[in-house]
Each structure stands twice: as C-alpha cells, then as structure tokens.
C-alpha cells in the first residue's frame, strides 16, 4: 500500500523492445453522436430504463473501434445481461436496507448507526465498482481471448476508503500515491488470458508533475479560508443576533467589524480564482494523469508509452465548450417558448392546477433536457476525443508476447455491474 517505488523506475528503461506496435481508434464522431442522442431521448422517455442498452451500445462502439496492434477489441456484454444483474442486485439490496432501518431503530437513531451505515454503503459501493470492473474485463475480447480479474473486492474497497481518508487529510497531496497504489492493486489482478498485468507508474513522479497545478489551485483556496478565520465571528454573530432589517445589520457590521467586508471581498476573489483555475487546468490535469497511467500499464513483457499532447486535449475541451455554448443558446430559446406557450394556454394569473402541473413539468423537463444534453455533448466531444487521442498517442512495446497467450479465467457475473448501478456508483464506460 505504500508508494515509494523508485526501484521500479530504474528497472523500466532496461527492458528490450522486441517489437513495437500501435494503438489506433477508428471510430467516427457521427455514429457516436447518433448512439448518444438517441440514447438520451430514450432515457427520458423510459425514465432511465433504457440505460442498460445505451451503455452497451456505447461500449460496443468504443471497444470495436479501438485497435491494439492490428486487432480490434470487442465488447461481448449484452444489455439483457446487465438488466438481469441489476434486478438481482436490487433483490440483494432490499433486505439490506430493511436490516439497516430496523437496526437503526433497535439501537436508537444515534449518529453512530447512521455513520456506520454510510461507511458500510461506501464499502459495498466500492466492492460493486470492483465487481463491475471484473464484469467489463471478462466481456472484453481481443484476438479470441477475454480479459479477467482476480483478487478480493472487499480488500479493494477497504483500500479505496483508506486512500479517500488520506486524500482528504492531506488536502489532495496523497492523490498520486492513492492512484499509484490502487492502480497497482487493480493491474496486479488483471489478466489477459494467461498474461498477467501489473502497473509500474510511480506515485512520486505523478506528484512531481501535478504539484504546480496543486499549488495554483490550493494556494488561493488556503488564502481564502485563512482570511475567513481572521474575522471575529462571535462579534458578527452578536450583531446579526440583535436583529433588524438586513440594511440595519449590514450597517452595524460595517461599524462594529470594519474588516468584515474587506475579508469577504478577499475571500470571494481568492476562492473565485481557485475555482476558475481548477476549471481551466482540468484538461492539463487529465493529460498528466492519463499519460502517467497509460505509460505505467504492463502485461508481462508488453509495455505501453503514452505521447498524449496537452494541446490536443485542450483542443478537445475547446470543442466541447463551443458545442456547449450553442446548446445553452438553444436551451434559452426553448425555455422561453415553453413558458410562453404555458402562459398563452392558461393565462398568467390563472390558479388552475393544470397550469401549475404543466409549469412544473416544463421546469423539470427543461432541467432534464439540459442535464442530458450536457452529458451527451461531453461524451460525444471531450470524452470521445480524449479516448481517441489517448489511443492514437500510445505506443506498444514487446508485442510479440501477444502472439502466444492462452485462454484463462471464467466470465464474471453481471451482478457487480447491477449492484454498482443500483447504488448509483456505476462508472459509465
């Protein structure tokens, strides 16, 4: 679980490349758009039941168009399979929820029970994430052989919770070590036929690459919150407690705690800067992590090197932004038309139930269309492009080892995937 693995750094360059190979992505934008847009519409109509088919279509497209050393991947899972897995997961979860509920009653509703239940749910959630990964791997076929996963899901879930706690306690500095440790765990239990995977990325190197970004975001955040601490909150609380109109209170604060407004101004400025920096730097962060992750992947003698370029990833996100602006414009026009139509049909002051129901439906509908639209655009632009760029910029070494792999491992059950879906931790693709 510790991450000081500088030793593997020294070992990596020593490997002899017997043969290099390429990764390619052959998929076009248009068919992917078609899958996603149709899926989004059907998700709305079926209140989400269509998600099993949408995710299957999406994976089939992405897998089939990803070519590793001349052979394309294949996703062999079916929507029916994960629907059944989902139903089984529900049947398993309902008694669990009832047990939680009754247990909370018997032990009294102390915060302890709720806390324990939350930790238990987080554990089950991460266990589900692990099992879902196993399902996806065993449904990934390359050259007539599927991948598979060994190892304990509970072990993984405990590691994840431990690292989350570490990340929170170190204000994010543990993130590279968490990634390295968890990826080592995942890859050590990942196999392509009888070819064992492993992960050679070093947490320390990721830390060095990401540290500048961390400073740009965390320094102003730190300034913002330490500024807040400099306010005499007891005094402000006492002033507010005296009551009166909001103008009175604001006036009294200006007189009684003059530093208040300056500090709040500083907070807004510093925190605003931190948030905008986080947004602007996200593609850079993604590039760094992706390049580090891909370059750390190994399957026995097969290695990967990523030459993902940051400028390409930024271009993908700019495209996403362009589509997003167009979509926002369209949504504003649509919102205007929707409410104008409701106003026209029912009058503005009518207190009829029908008008209310239509207004609520209109609001919910617009929200859902916006959210689904945003997600669709994100997947069809940024996500697809980053997938393609990552594939195209990866170079394989030692691919001769891929010619002599033997089948191994049995297919995993889709219940893990269903469990992840039922617990809303399903990781999409």
């Amino acid at each position, binding site marked *: 679980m510790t991450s000081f693995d500088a030793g593997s750094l020294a070992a990596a360059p020593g490997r002899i490349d017997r043969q290099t190979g390429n990764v390619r992505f*052959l998929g076009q934008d248009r068919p992917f758009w078609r899958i996603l847009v149709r899926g989004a519409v*059907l*998700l709305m*109509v*079926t*209140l*989400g*039941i*269509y*998600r099993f*088919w949408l995710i299957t279509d999406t994976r089939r497209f992405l*897998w*089939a168009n990803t*070519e590793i050393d001349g*052979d*394309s991947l*294949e*996703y*062999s899972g079916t*929507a029916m399979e994960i629907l059944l897995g989902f139903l089984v997961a*529900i049947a398993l*979860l*309902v008694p669990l929820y009832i047990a939680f*509920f009754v247990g*909370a*009653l*018997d032990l*009294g*509703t102390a915060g302890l029970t709720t806390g324990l239940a939350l930790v238990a749910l987080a554990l089950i959630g991460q266990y589900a994430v692990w099992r879902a990964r196993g399902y996806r791997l065993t449904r990934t*076929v*390359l*050259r*007539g*052989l*599927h991948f598979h996963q060994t190892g304990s899901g509970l072990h993984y879930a405990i590691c994840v919770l431990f690292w989350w706690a570490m990340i929170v306690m170190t204000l994010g500095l543990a993130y590279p070590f968490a990634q390295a440790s968890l990826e080592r765990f995942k890859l050590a239990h990942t196999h392509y*036929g009888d070819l064992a995977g492993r992960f050679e990325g070093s947490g320390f190197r990721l830390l060095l690459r990401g540290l500048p970004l961390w400073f740009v975001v965390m320094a102003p955040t730190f300034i913002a919150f330490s500024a807040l601490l400099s306010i005499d909150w007891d005094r402000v609380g006492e002033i507010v407690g005296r009551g009166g109109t909001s103008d009175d209170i604001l006036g009294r604060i200006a007189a009684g705690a003059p530093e208040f407004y300056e500090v709040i101004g500083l907070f807004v400025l510093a925190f605003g800067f931190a948030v905008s920096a986080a947004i602007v730097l996200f593609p850079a962060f993604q590039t760094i992590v992706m390049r580090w992750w891909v370059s750390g992947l190994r399957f026995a003698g097969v290695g990967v090197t990523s030459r993902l370029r940051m400028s390409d990833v930024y271009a993908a996100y700019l495209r996403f932004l362009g589509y997003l602006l167009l979509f926002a414009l369209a949504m504003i026009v649509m919102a205007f038309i929707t409410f104008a139509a409701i106003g026209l049909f029912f009058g503005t002051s009518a*207190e009829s*139930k029908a008008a*209310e*129901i239509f*207004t*609520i439906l209109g609001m*919910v509908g617009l*929200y*859902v269309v*916006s*959210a*689904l639209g*945003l*997600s669709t655009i994100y997947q069809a632009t940024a996500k697809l492009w980053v997938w393609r760029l990552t594939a195209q910029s990866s170079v394989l070494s030692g691919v001769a080892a*891929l*010619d*002599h*792999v*033997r*089948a191994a491992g049995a297919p995993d059950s889709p219940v893990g995937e269903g469990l992840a*879906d*039922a617990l*809303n931790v*399903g990781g999409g693709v």
Partner: protein
Amino acid sequence: MSVRTGTARYFDGLTSARRDVTLELAAHALVIRQADGIILGEWSYIRLKHLSAPDHIFRIALRKNAAPARLEITDMDLAHEIDLLAPDIDRTGASARRDRRRVIGWACFAAVMMVLSAAYGVPLLADRLAPLVPRGFEQRIGVAANAQLRTMLDKGPADRPFDCGEGPIEQAGQAAFERLVRQLETAANVRIPLEVSVVRRAEANAFALPGGFIYVFQGLIDKAENADELAAVIAHEIGHVAHRDGMRALLQGAGLSFLFGMMLGDFVGGGAVVLAGRAILQSAYSRRVEHAADRFGVEVMLALGADARALGRFLERISGDTPGGFSVLLDHPTAQERAAAINAMAPPQSRGVTLLDPAEWAALKRICAAYRT
C-alpha cells in the same frame, strides 16, 4: 456446383494466435480450413451470430460456444453470402432495429407501470399495511423520532425546559390543558395512549408523530381565542394518531424511495425527475390524509358537543393569505378549502358546550409564562 470460398482471419478462442484461413461455404456449414488443408472447424449456419466490429470487418462467432472463437472477414462480398445463409445474421440491421423497437416498447410500458404504481399502488399498499404494523414497532419508531425531533426543535438556552407547564406559575395552565386533552381522548376513543406536550416554539403549529406523540407549539396557544379552537386542533392531531398516519407516511415514503430511487433514475438529470415526482405524489397523499384527520377532528368535537367549526375558523385566521408557490406541492390543503370542507360536515353552532371554564382558559393561556421566548 462449385462451392464459394474466401479468406478470413480466425481466432480459436484458446490461444491468441492469428490464423489466416480459407472459408468454404458448404451446404451444411461454414468450413474453416487451415492453409495446409486441415479443417479447424465447421460452423453450422443456424448458430452463427454477428458481433460488433469496426466498419471494415465482418466479425462472427458460433452461438453457445464455450470458447470465444472468432472469424473476421474483410471481403464484403463473402460477408454478404454468409449473411444470406445464416438466418440470425442481418447486416442491414433491420432485425436489430425490430428487436430494439420491442425493447423500447417494453421499457416505456415498464416506466408507465412504475409511475402508475407510484401514484396509486404505493398509497394503497401503505394504507393496507399500516394497520398491520405491530403497535410495539410503531411505538419504537415514535420514541426514536421523538428524541430526534426534540433536539432539532429545542433551540432555547440549556437551562430552560423545552416543555411548558413545569414551572410554578405554569402548573395551573398544565392542569387545564390536561383536562382538555382528557376530554378529547375519551371522546376520540383511541387505543394508543397519547402523550400531548406544549413546547416553547413561537410558530402557530401542532403535529403528531407515530406512537401517539402530539406536540402543540406555544405560538398556537397564543393565537387561539378560545378553548374550542385549541381543542379542534388537538382533535385533528388525534385523528392522525388514530389513522396511524405517521406509519402510513413512512411506508409510503419508503415505497416511493424504492420505486424512484432504486428502480429508476441512475442517469444524468434523473435526480430531478425523482425529486419532482416524489414531491408531487407525497404532497397529494399528505393532502388526502389531512382531510381525513379534519373529518376525525370534526366528529370528536361533535361528540363532545363543542364547536366543530372552530378548526376551520382558526385555520383561516392564522394562515393569512394563500401561500405563494405551487399548490400541487403543498402538503396541506389551503385553509379555505379545509374550512369549506369542515363547514360542510359540521352544522353551525350558536352555543357550544364550553370545554374549559374562563378561569381555566386564562390559566391555559399562561402555560408557557415562566420563561420569556
């Protein structure tokens, strides 16, 4: 008759070796032949299935085959001929689209059924199940909810008791209050022992929890003009206890959580659908429950010979104007609606029986007098 042949790439599902093979479209099956003529497999046409692949590759496998053996064909004419021979392969996508349309139809049907069961099935089930819940269980839920609620509501200084009626100048008021409650309890004939408390909260409100806990806020007593108005509110709350509405709301909420939270929803934006659906359905259910409790309250007041219209009048006075926002999202009907319904049930009473004499009522008004709010 010549047999159509062509080339393909074959993976046997046991090793990752790429094999370039010759395919023979024989009458009985697709024969896979290695370069040296050895037959690697004979795939029956009826068991062939078409798999996802990039556009330039036609990828097929054998259904119900233990190993994931694959054939990849780039010669599209050959692919076309196999398509014609294999009943389950349709490269035009027409049968896939037909299957998908069927799926969409069933999914829509399932969604409609789920909405209908949320709107009608869940309340019906909650109404039927609530009476079957053992009293002891309801009592435990009540005790737990009661403890949690007290810590939530009690915002006063630590040295001030949350309950009214304990201080020396409050005891006369407490005695009057208890006499009022006793009369109502006898008339209502509820089998659950009631625990009615007056607490120091400025809002004009009262509510009932599962297990017979009823809270009357100080603000309500301040606003009441006579004992009948206060009695009518308590009678309404006793109605909730008698109907076991707390239990029903709990069951109904759990049912909706299950239907909306688990079965539906795990898609972007689905959260809003779930919230809006729950809010509308739960408020509709709650409004129905309130009407039933009003009816119960009216019957109790009539049984006591007191002024049954007091509740409607009191509600109209304290509610002020119609609240803003959406009426389909209100969990109580508007005061006007309730008053109208109550007046339709209760005849006007010029002179009701006084539930408390003036001295008792004056004492009750001072039940929270020991501490300034």
